[in-house]
């Protein structure tokens, strides 16, 4: 099933399917690119950032960015 990274639930895992062109270069330096496996670690309240685990390390991403990343989640 496909959803936005920002819609993933706590402990949900998935694979990055598509990243909006506008932020590809911006988040590549954070180790996030298409094909990468991600796990949702924490969601901060009041439209705060999400924390995902990529390659065994945690990275926080602003909710606005997470809205532009599409993930194929495991069932």
């Amino acid at each position, binding site marked *: 099933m496909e959803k936005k990274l920002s819609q993933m639930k706590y402990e949900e895992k998935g694979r990055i399917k598509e990243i909006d062109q506008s932020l*590809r*270069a*911006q988040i*590549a*330096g*954070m*180790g996030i690119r298409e094909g990468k496996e991600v796990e949702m670690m924490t969601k901060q309240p009041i439209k705060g950032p999400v924390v995902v685990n990529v*390659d*065994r*390390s945690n990275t926080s991403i602003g909710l606005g960015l997470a809205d532009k990343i599409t993930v194929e989640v495991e069932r």
Partner: protein
Amino acid sequence: MRKVLLMGQANVGKSVLFNRLAGAHVTESNYPGTTVDFAKGRMRLDHEDVEIIDVPGTFSLEPKDRAEEVAASMLKEEKDALVVCVIDSSKVERGLYLTLEVIEKGYPVVVALNMWDVAKDGNIKIDAKKLEQILGVPVVSTVATRGEGLKELVLRMKKAAPGEVEKIVEKVGGKSGTHN
């Protein structure tokens, strides 16, 4: 005086490495117009005094905040600098992104695979030789906190040469210019 820039993401041990390399010859500076501090020091390289600069941590050369802007502009200003790209060995992929950006700009680069012990503890195996072959620049594993690999790093700094992105892309069989 020749300059050596220590570049890398935040929390990869740049400052520890810096303190080890510069020893006691350190001056703290405030980058003009910002609140971002960076430290400068001196070290001996190949019988020559060189200035070594601890650049603020940055994810990439396309700045997203003030510290990253400083990092990117420092690199831009120091056209003849040698760049030591410091990578957290337990998070290699992230670090390589910045390294490739610096290589792409034509700077002579040495890669320090720092926190090698952390990677080892996490059962992460990195083939430094192979990485060196692919990147075409020296790659040295280091544990800055314990001073491991620093002699080797300084020795290899003398041999730092600009890498060629096209060749790197060719070696890994990828396509160039897939982003931007």
